[in-house]
């Protein structure tokens, strides 16, 4: 159980879908993912590469136009997709028209369908309005740290320019204020004032990632999306960056969406963890709970693959393999994300839910 159960929900993601066009077909990078992040907690998102965790993060800060679903930040809808409404309209229209050999729909049903179409059209209008009239100030409260500290900093800007860019864009004109803020944040992330005039190439990998963190934290965000912030760093530097993020979180009361594939780090850093597999959220629970009682076979295989600095137990370790086709039979009963234990969600169908419950004596 996390300590943040009672605090307000900061970010709510509902049925988020993000599809990419690939020629004639579509790639479902994120398919129907829902979760919420409470104020003050660290929410970890894990999964193998290509499972859609980065896409989720980018969709939240509106780097993509989402295909379907809604994203609420502080109660306001900041992102909305219209695909699901369109599909509903299409379906209803098809039914209205009726196939060649199917019976014409009854009067009542026809009226119902008309209503559905009208309602969905209304929703589309609303979604389009929300997307267009999103509160810009609110969006600055979500900031992102990128994976690669080398590629994500403009080599032609000084550190000061990089950090101040967000402030300037948001209308800060007073040079004195900007300077104070930049210097303040530099010291906060463990750099010194003198670094402000230098260029990114003059820094080591760890320091560059600190600049990336400073750039996002200077906007006083409420939500920080950290997209694999330590994967590109050296072992010794990784610990420095994790410690820095922990400190900043305590000082500034940040809420963090932490995306990573290193499970030991995610376990250490996060309060709750969501496990993603091929665009779906397959399990979501408090981190201790997830590691103590993994339910979904994919989570189990993921946990069994973590290498540990312990030769004896490593030699005995057996890796559980996960084959999505062999592990589940979803031909009849489609799976959904269900709450098995309070706070512990697993993607399963009825039969599996029963099995999980039996396994844990619930």
């Amino acid at each position, binding site marked *: 159980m996390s300590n943040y159960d009672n605090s307000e929900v900061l970010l709510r993601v509902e049925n988020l879908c993000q599809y990419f066009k690939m020629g004639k077909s579509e790639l479902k990078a994120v398919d129907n993912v829902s979760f919420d992040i409470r104020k003050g907690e660290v929410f970890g998102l894990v999964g193998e590469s290509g499972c859609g965790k980065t896409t989720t993060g980018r969709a939240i800060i509106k780097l993509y136009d989402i295909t379907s679903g809604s994203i609420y930040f502080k109660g306001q809808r900041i992102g909305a997709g219209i695909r699901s409404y369109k599909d509903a309209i299409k379906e209803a229209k098809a039914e209205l028209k009726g196939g060649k050999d199917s019976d014409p729909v009854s009067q009542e049903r026809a009226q119902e369908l008309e209503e559905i179409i009208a309602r969905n059209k209304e929703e589309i209008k609303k979604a389009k309005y929300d997307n267009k009239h999103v509160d810009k100030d609110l969006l600055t409260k979500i900031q992102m740290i990128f994976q690669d500290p080398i590629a994500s900093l403009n080599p032609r800007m000084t550190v000061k320019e990089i950090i101040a860019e967000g402030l300037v864009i948001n209308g800060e004109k007073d040079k004195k204020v900007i300077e104070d803020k930049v210097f303040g944040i530099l010291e906060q992330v463990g750099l010194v004032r003198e670094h402000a005039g230098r260029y990114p190439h003059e820094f080591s990998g760890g320091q560059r990632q600190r600049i990336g963190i400073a750039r996002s934290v200077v906007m006083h965000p409420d939500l920080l999306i950290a997209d694999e912030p330590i994967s590109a760093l050296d072992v010794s530097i990784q610990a420095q960056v994790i*410690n820095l993020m922990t400190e900043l979180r305590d000082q500034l009361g940040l809420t963090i969406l932490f995306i990573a594939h290193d499970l030991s780090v995610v376990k250490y850093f996060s309060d709750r963890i969501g496990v993603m597999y091929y665009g779906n959220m397959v399990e979501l629970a408090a981190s201790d709970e997830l590691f103590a009682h993994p339910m979904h076979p994919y989570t189990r295989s993921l946990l069994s693959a973590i290498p*540990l600095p*312990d030769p004896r137990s490593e030699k005995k370790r057996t890796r559980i393999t996960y084959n999505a086709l062999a592990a589940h039979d979803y031909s009849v009963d489609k799976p959904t994300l269900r709450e098995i234990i309070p706070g512990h969600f697993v993607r399963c169908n009825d039969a599996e839910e029963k099995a999980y419950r039996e396994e844990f004596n619930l």
Partner: protein
Amino acid sequence: MDKILEVKNLKVSFRTSGGTVKAVRHISFDLERGKTLAIVGESGSGKSVTSKAILGILAGNSIIEGGEILFDGMDLLKIDEETMCDIRGNRISMIFQDPLSSLNPIVKIGRQITEAMLLKDKGNRSTARRDFNDLLAIIKENSTAALGKESEAKVAEMCKKFDEFNIESNHMQESYNNAKNVAEDLISDAEDFLFLASKNQKLDVKSDLKTMADKLKKVKDEFYTYGMDEKVDAAYLELKNAASTAKRGKISDIPEGVINAVKDVEDHMRTLNSQTEPDFFRIGFYKQNNPETDLHAMPVEELNEFCLDYLNENFMLEYLDMEQKGVEYSYRTALEKKKSVIDELKEDRTFFEQEGLSRTDAHKKAKELAAMVEDSIDKLEINKDSVAYTFGHALEDAIDRYYNAVVKNPKEEARYAKQSAKRDALIAKGKTVDWKVVPKLVYDLDELKGNMTAVMDNMIVHYENYIAAGEPDFSKRSVEIVDFMKYKAAAVVHKITRSMAKEKAIELMEEVGIPEPRIRYNQYPFEFSGGMRQRIVIAIALAANPDILICDEPTTALDVTIQAQILELINKLKAERDLSVIFITHDLGVVANMADEIAVMYAGKIVEFGTADEIFYDPRHPYTWALLSSMPDLDTKEKLDAIPGTPPNMIYPPEGDAFAARNKYALQIDFEQEPPKFHVSDTHWAATWLLHPDAPKVEPPRIIVDRIERMKKRSGGSI
């Protein structure tokens, strides 16, 4: 223990615009056959440089300042590029970090795997013929000398005969091999055809059958198709009929009859391939003397026996006798020369020890000695005497190093004196001086001089041991030589065709766990996922069946699950093929399962060395502590012990313990003097002053103590 690779005092630097970067500073380790050595450290610690030095693929601005890498009796740092090329890939192979950048994106996977096989094959064939001729010439020379002038003509005739009938048997072998290659081609074609047919893929049946029929026609060798002629002919007719009746264009619905015909062909070819191979070495001689006889009436086993008897009676025994005399003669003359070499070397020790020896004189002498040693090598030994072969190089190298130091040392002294004087003068004036005098870098001349005689001593001991070992069995040795020549002769006509390489590649792909290799063979790297790509890289590395596999961060770019798969795969292959592995990584968690021994590197030096259990359950060096404690494991709750700062600039490597500046346990002496190796057990040592008997007792960080405690509990306290 059987050491397959020894690295001794390796020192590598890089020339850069900022100065020389001392990337690897005097490291030594041994790799034992069938074991895994893990090298762990952060980036810039010199792990990859070490592995690249072993493979001889260092960047152009690298300078190998010293040391030896001994492999199979060769010093890999001193051999020429051509020899290195034979070793690289064939004997020592490497898996690179990033599977994406180590595969060519525009070449199909299959071609990339077979490329090396085909390339190496061409080279092997041309060298085989040369080796054969060289060896025969040496035998001729020695035998003539042994038997005296009067039998010169006889020896020459024997050797000529040997050569000639070998050529004859080579012709037969070649024709046989050609037939066999086509047959293997056919098997591969038939397999492809049947596989695609079973998958309901569209196939151009007409043209496929036609090519198969054409190939079947080429499976023609008296020996190869012996006893199967009729069946093969029948299969040919069947194929041809099927081809003529098949429709043009791509068809997905293939009639049963066609499938059966192709299956028949495959079966026939497999039976042919499984037949005993006739020994052409024997048959060639018979054929040469009795060109008219038809040999195909006999079954292969009988034929082999018959020809062997014939060969022995008429030629081989006599030849062996002659050759044995030659071998004996060569051994004895070499032995005499070796004895004189020992005397000479013992005498010349004083020559190199004398004061004021000039460089040219030393080199002149070294050349003389090298020539003598070269002369004293028994050329008819199949297992080459590596110490003797590398003697000349080693001695010249030692001399060069000594005289370079003689020139450089005074300059360095002068510079140091000048700088210190300047600094002292400034201090005397009462100014604050914020710079340090660069410490002087002088070589120990006595040690370098000692190195020269050490090379000679080594040679003397080696030869004395050789003489003490006594006479070898000459008849056994001469048979060995014949076998060796037979092997070389066969290698001349042993071609690897594209389709043979393909079959081998598909086998390899199956071995590394790629499903449906027959389809995957024709795909491009981008069609593979990260894990599959890394498997391909491993398959390429294994193509030549190497003795040593170097894995340079093979899993860093991969996900946890894939990482576990790849590690399991490497472990499996290691056990199956008795590979010795050097595993380079910065993640200690990864090596726990892999390594037998672990070397922890920092700033170009090994700071701790031990077995996996010792490093994980009883780490001693603060850097090892730092590495272990900077990564959280699943039970970590407390704040991480990050290593402060960054690795030192290796243009100016720090004095004393390189890790001292980032080490909270550092003692005063760590900043001043380099710690020696302190042995904790026979297999475990660490270079830190903390292990000195006078050092204060320091506990490792809590996070590690706790973790080891937990691990002990988990394994039942048996550590």
